[in-house]
């Protein structure tokens, strides 16, 4: 098919398995060298992205929001979401200067159970040192996004720009 295509085609699914723990580790770095961006779907069906913080446990991605944020409404209307994770400090793996990056899509469930959210903050603090730093007044109601993955595409982990794709978690 040509040299360019050969350097960009998907890794064989069996070979891709060897990268699974490295990729999970990469997206689990709590906002240190890995940055995360959330995609939600607007009422008109068109997607929008913005930076968010994430906490990952065993392929479930958590993000804290507030009740009046527009992204909460988006997810209530359409639970299909996506996250892009980018490496902000590592070496480039291709001439355009790109560093490791992971795209995931999944189904997001919203929790406003404050006991569950409080438990989430405790778990996150024990792993990352980052507890609940949000305002403690009536203006701020914590909402938790919990996303279970159904698709992942990772670049910069295997040779050249060849993506790794996972469909099962």
């Amino acid at each position: 098919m040509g040299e360019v295509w050969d350097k960009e085609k998907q890794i064989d699914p069996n070979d891709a398995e060897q990268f699974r723990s490295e990729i999970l580790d990469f997206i689990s770095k709590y906002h240190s060298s890995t940055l995360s961006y959330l995609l939600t779907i607007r009422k008109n069906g068109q997607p929008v992205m913005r930076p968010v913080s994430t906490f990952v446990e065993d392929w479930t991605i958590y993000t804290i929001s507030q009740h009046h944020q527009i992204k909460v409404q988006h997810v209530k209307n359409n639970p299909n979401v996506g996250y892009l994770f980018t490496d902000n400090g590592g070496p480039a793996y291709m001439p355009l200067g790109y560093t490791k990056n992971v795209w995931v899509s999944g189904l997001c469930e919203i929790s406003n159970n404050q006991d569950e959210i409080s438990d989430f903050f405790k778990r996150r603090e024990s792993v990352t040192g980052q507890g609940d730093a949000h305002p403690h007044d009536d203006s701020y109601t914590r909402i938790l996004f919990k996303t279970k993955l159904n698709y992942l595409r990772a670049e910069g982990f295997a040779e050249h720009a060849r993506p790794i794709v996972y469909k099962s978690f």
Partner: protein
Amino acid sequence: MGKTYDSEKEVSNEISEQLKNEIFLFIRNWKKSRAWLMTRRKDSREIMRPVGSFINQDWSVGTITQDLHLKTKHVQNDSITGYLWIEVDKPRYGRLDFPRNVWMQGQAEVLEDEDSVNEFFSKRSAATGRGDAHPQDNTYKRMLINTQPQYLRAEGFFKDEPMRAVIIRDFTEPILLSEEDIANRLNQK
């Protein structure tokens, strides 16, 4: 709504208008930002991957692809696309310490005719020095994904409150800077 919400809400139209040139220059500056293209798969779910991109003064954005790439097929099946640009090697903004970033959503078409593709390379080469560096053999068929924007969201640009999003919904007015002005401004950055 509370202090947190106030620090994150959309800026006024007036501020948004003032920041249009800066946002355009940020997207144009391919050495200081990285681009990811979103397309939709056959099952309608979104997917993103890193790409090269070039923004024209009318806000349309071009990305070169090949006929055998999945993203080409995606755009031919579903014209909704999106780009996320993220700045590299610059100071961060806000509580979450992010680099500046721009999301653009639009509608794309795949252009296959050689004249359109060559015109794109000529414009990009004149503006950035990046010509056609793809293989010159029959294994590589150049195609152009050309996106007309419908919605843009930028963070980190309003210096007083950088977490407040700049939203642009109207792209009828092109950027009025000349190519020379653009090159000079980018060289100063």
